[in-house]
C-alpha cells in the first residue's frame, strides 16, 4: 500500500489543512468580535464627549499640550532608540495612511457618519500607540514611578468617592459608636498581641470587638449628643488611615518620614474638610478623598525619594495637569470652538431630568455603587464559606459524600438559570416574604448576590482544589486542626483565584437589568438613596430608560454618556480589585 503514496521515497507529507483552516477561522472570528466592539466603543465615546463637533484646532491643541508630552515622557522612560524610531514612524506613517484611506473611502464608497479623518487617526493610531508606549514606558524606572504615583492619586480619589458614597446609606452615628467601642479596641488588642507575641491578647481581640459592636447597637439611641459628621469621619477614618500609613513607613524609614507621611495629608485633609464645609460642599467626602489620596501618595513619594531612582517620574501628574490647563487656556484665549460633552461634571452630580442637557446620573451611580459594594461583600463571604465547606470539610464517600455531590451538581445548574428567574426569586423571597421591601437597595443586593453566588462558589472551589495536597498534609502533620490548615495554608494560597472569580462575577452583576426590573427597582429616581431601604435606581436601569425617550439627544448623547460612565466605573472597580489581588499574590 505504501507504494500508492505519491512520495514513496521520502517520508511523505501529512495534511495540515484542517488545522490551518481552524486556526484562521478562530483568528478571524475573534478579530471580528473585537473590531465590532471597538467600533461601537468609538462611536459611544464620540457621542458622549461630543467629539463629532470638535474642531481640528481643538483636537490639535490638546494633542500638543497633553498627548505629545505624555508620549515624550514614555519615550524618555523607555530610553530605547528602536522604540522611539518605531513610535515616530507609526504616528507619522499612520497619519498619512489614515488620512488617505479615509478620504478614499469617503469619496469612493460612502461618507462615514459622525467621523472625520482626524478622529479616525486619534482612535485608530493615536490611542493604540499611546497605550503601547505607556506600556513600554512603564517598564523603565522613571515610567514605573510616574505611573505608580498616578495610580495612587487616581485610586485614592476613586476609593475616597466610593467610601463617601457608602456613608450616604450607613448611619454615621452607629458607625462612630461601633468604631470607638468595637473596632478600635479589637484592632488595638490584636496589634499589641502581635507586637509582644502574646497570643492571649490576639484571641481576646475578637470577643472584645464583638462586645463593642453589640454595645454600639444598644447605645445608638441612648446616646443623645454626637460630634458633627466631619469630626466623626476625621476620627473614624482619616486618623486611622494616616496612622496606618505612618506605622508602615515608620517600620521601614524611621520616625520623621512617618510623621510627615501621616501628618501632612491629615492636616491638608482636615483643612480641606472644614473649608469644604464652609463652601457648602460635601465636607466628609472631601475629607475622605483627600486623606485616602494623600497618605498613599505621600508614602509612595517618600519611598521613591529614599530609593533615589526614577525621581523624574514624580513629575508625571504635574506634566498631565499642566497639559490640561495649558490646553484650556489656549482654547479660551484663541476662541477655538470646543465640543460640548454630554459626560461632564453636571452629568455625574445631577439628577435625571426631562431635558437632555440637564439630565444627570448621580442617583443611579450612588445606587449602583452601594449595591455592588454589598454584593461584593455578600457573595465573597458566602462564596468562600460555601466552597471551603464543600472542598475541605465534607467527606468524599458515604451518605454525606453523596449529598455533597448532589449539591455540587445543583450549584453548577444554578449558574445557568436565567437572571429573570433570580429576579422573581428575589421578589418573592426578599421583597415579600422577608419584607425587605419592593425595589429597595437591600433586596437588589441580596438578589444579585444570589445570582452570582454559583459562579463565585464554582470558581472559588476551583481555586481551593488547585492548592497542592502536599501543603495540606504538611500542615495537618504539624498538628493543625482542619480550620487552622484552611485558614493558614489553603485560603492564602487560593485567594488570588478566589478573587479573580469574584471580580468576574461582580462585572456581571453590575450590568444586570432584568432582575432589577423584576424586584421593582425604579427606572428613575431623583434623589440618591439615603438608607438601605430607600428606593433606588441603578446605572443600567437608568440608561435603559433613557434609551426609550423620544428625543434623539437622549438616545444618543445622554445614553452614550451613561454607558461610558458605567464602563469607567466597571473598569475602575475591576482594576482596583486586580491591583489588590496582585499585591496579595506578591505578598504571600
Amino acid at each position: 500500500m505504501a507504494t500508492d503514496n505519491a512520495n514513496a521515497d521520502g517520508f511523505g507529507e501529512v495534511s495540515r489543512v484542517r488545522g490551518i483552516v481552524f486556526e484562521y477561522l478562530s483568528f478571524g472570528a475573534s478579530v471580528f468580535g473585537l473590531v465590532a466592539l471597538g467600533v461601537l466603543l468609538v462611536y459611544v465615546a464620540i457621542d458622549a464627549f461630543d467629539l463629532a463637533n470638535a474642531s481640528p484646532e481643538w483636537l490639535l491643541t490638546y494633542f500638543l499640550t497633553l498627548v505629545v508630552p505624555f508620549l515624550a515622557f514614555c519615550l524618555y522612560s523607555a530610553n530605547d532608540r528602536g522604540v522611539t524610531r518605531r513610535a515616530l514612524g507609526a504616528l507619522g506613517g499612520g497619519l498619512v495612511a489614515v488620512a488617505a484611506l479615509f478620504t478614499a473611502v469617503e469619496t469612493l464608497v460612502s461618507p462615514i457618519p459622525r467621523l472625520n479623518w482626524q478622529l479616525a487617526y486619534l482612535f485608530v493610531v493615536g490611542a493604540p500607540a499611546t497605550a503601547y508606549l505607556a506600556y513600554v514606558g512603564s517598564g523603565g524606572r522613571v515610567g514605573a514611578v510616574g505611573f505608580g504615583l498616578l495610580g495612587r492619586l487616581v485610586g485614592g480619589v476613586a476609593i475616597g468617592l466610593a467610601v463617601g458614597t457608602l456613608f450616604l446609606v450607613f448611619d454615621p452615628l452607629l458607625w462612630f459608636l461601633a468604631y470607638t467601642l468595637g473596632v478600635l479596641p479589637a484592632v488595638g488588642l490584636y496589634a499589641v498581641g502581635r507586637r509582644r507575641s502574646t497570643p492571649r491578647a490576639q484571641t481576646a481581640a475578637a470577643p472584645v470587638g464583638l462586645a463593642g459592636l453589640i454595645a454600639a447597637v444598644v447605645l445608638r439611641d441612648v446616646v443623645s449628643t454626637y460630634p458633627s459628621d466631619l469630626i466623626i469621619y476625621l476620627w473614624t477614618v482619616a486618623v486611622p488611615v494616616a496612622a496606618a500609613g505612618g506605622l508602615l513607613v515608620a517600620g521601614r524609614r524611621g520616625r520623621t518620614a512617618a510623621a510627615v507621611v501621616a501628618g501632612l495629608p491629615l492636616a491638608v485633609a482636615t483643612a480641606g474638610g472644614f473649608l469644604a464645609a464652609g463652601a457648602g460642599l460635601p465636607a466628609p467626602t472631601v475629607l475622605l478623598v483627600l486623606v485616602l489620596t494623600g497618605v498613599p501618595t505621600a508614602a509612595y513619594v517618600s519611598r521613591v525619594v529614599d530609593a533615589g531612582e526614577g525621581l523624574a517620574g514624580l513629575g508625571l501628574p504635574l506634566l498631565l495637569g499642566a497639559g490640561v490647563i495649558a490646553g484650556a487656556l489656549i482654547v479660551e484665549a484663541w476662541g477655538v470652538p470646543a465640543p460640548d460633552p454630554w459626560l461632564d461634571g453636571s452629568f455625574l452630580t445631577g439628577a435625571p431630568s426631562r431635558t437632555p442637557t440637564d439630565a444627570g446620573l448621580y442617583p443611579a451611580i450612588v445606587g449602583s455603587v452601594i449595591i455592588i459594594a454589598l454584593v461584593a461583600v455578600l457573595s465573597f463571604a458566602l462564596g468562600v464559606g460555601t466552597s471551603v465547606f464543600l472542598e475541605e470539610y465534607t467527606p468524599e464517600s458515604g451518605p454525606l459524600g453523596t449529598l455533597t455531590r448532589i449539591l455540587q451538581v445543583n450549584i453548577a445548574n444554578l449558574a445557568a438559570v436565567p437572571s429573570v428567574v433570580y429576579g422573581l426569586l428575589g421578589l418573592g423571597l426578599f421583597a415579600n416574604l422577608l419584607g425587605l421591601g419592593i425595589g429597595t437597595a437591600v433586596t437588589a443586593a441580596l438578589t444579585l448576590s444570589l445570582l452570582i453566588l454559583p459562579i463565585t462558589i464554582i470558581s472559588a472551589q476551583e481555586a481551593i482544589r488547585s492548592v497542592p495536597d502536599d501543603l495540606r498534609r504538611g500542615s495537618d502533620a504539624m498538628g493543625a486542626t482542619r480550620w487552622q490548615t484552611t485558614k493558614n495554608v489553603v485560603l492564602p494560597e487560593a485567594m488570588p483565584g478566589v478573587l479573580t472569580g469574584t471580580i468576574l462575577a461582580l462585572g456581571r452583576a453590575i450590568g444586570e437589568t432584568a432582575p432589577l426590573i423584576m424586584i421593582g427597582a425604579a427606572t428613575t429616581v431623583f434623589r440618591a438613596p439615603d438608607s438601605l431601604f430607600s428606593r433606588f435606581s441603578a446605572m443600567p436601569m437608568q440608561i435603559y430608560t433613557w434609551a426609550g425617550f423620544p428625543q434623539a439627544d437622549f438616545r444618543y448623547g445622554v445614553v452614550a454618556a451613561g454607558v461610558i460612565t458605567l464602563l469607567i466605573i466597571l473598569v475602575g472597580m475591576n482594576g482596583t480589585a486586580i491591583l489588590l489581588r496582585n499585591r496579595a499574590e506578591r505578598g504571600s
Partner: protein
Amino acid sequence: MSNTTSDDSLITTEVQADSNDDRAASAAETAVAARDLNVYYGDERAIDDVTMEIPEKRVTALIGPSGCGKSTFLRCINRMNDMIEICRVDGDVEFGGKNVYDTDVDPVALRRKIGMVFQKPNPFPKSIRDNVAYGLKIQGFDGDVDKRVEESLKGAALWDEVKDQLDSSGLELSGGQQQRLCIARAIAPDPEVILMDEPTSALDPVAASKIEDLIDDLAEQYTVIIVTHNMQQAARISDRTAVFLTGGELVEYDDTAKIFEDPEEQRVEDYITGKFG
C-alpha cells in the same frame, strides 16, 4: 546494587557510621511500640500483624520494596492514616504510655508531639521565618518565637545559609534547603518523635548526604523513624533496621549491623543483596 561480599558485610558500605556506635550498644527505653497492628485499605491488607518496639533517641530505619507498607506504618504512628477515608487500623500503637488509637486520644494533639517530614519537600508558600514558626503559631506558643526559629534552623543546619533572608519565601530555596527547612519546621515545636518518609529520595546526592548528617545529629534529642529505599543510607545512619516485605509483613527487625551483616532470614539476605525486590 553491587553484591560483592568479600568481607562479612553484605553490602559494600561501612555499616554503622562511627558516631552512632555507642548509641546502638546501650539499651534504650521504648518510644513507640506497635502491637498486632493490621492496616487495611478497603479489603486490601497493607500491614500484616506487625509488632515492634522502637527505641527512644535512636534512628530506626524501615526498609523494604515499594508497596510493602512502610509509609502506611509510618502514618499509623501520628494517625495521618485517619485522613484516608478507606483506611482502617486494627491493633495498638503505643506512644507515651498510651494507645494512640484509644477513643480519648485527639489525633491533632498527638501530631503536635510527633513531627513529620515528607518525601517531596513541602514548605508553605510563606517566608522562611513563618514556615519555621508555623507549629508555634498554631499551638499558641507563648515564648520568644524568634529565638525558637533561630534554634530550629540551627538544629536543621540551615541557619548559616538563610539567616540574612528570613523574610524571603521558603520556595526560593534549593530542594535540599527546602527539605532542611521542613525539618526545622518539624522540630520547632520540640516534638518527641520525628517521622521521615524517604526524605532524601527527591534530592541530589550532595543534598542527601547533608540530610543524612543532620539525621545523625537529630538522634541526640529525638526519636527518629525513617523510611528509606536506599539500603546504604539505612546502613549508614540507622541504629535499628526493620525490613518489611511485600504484603506488609515485618520480616526481620534488629540492630542495623546485624541485619546487614548476618540476617536470620534468607528472604532478607536476598532482598539486601538485590536478589529480590
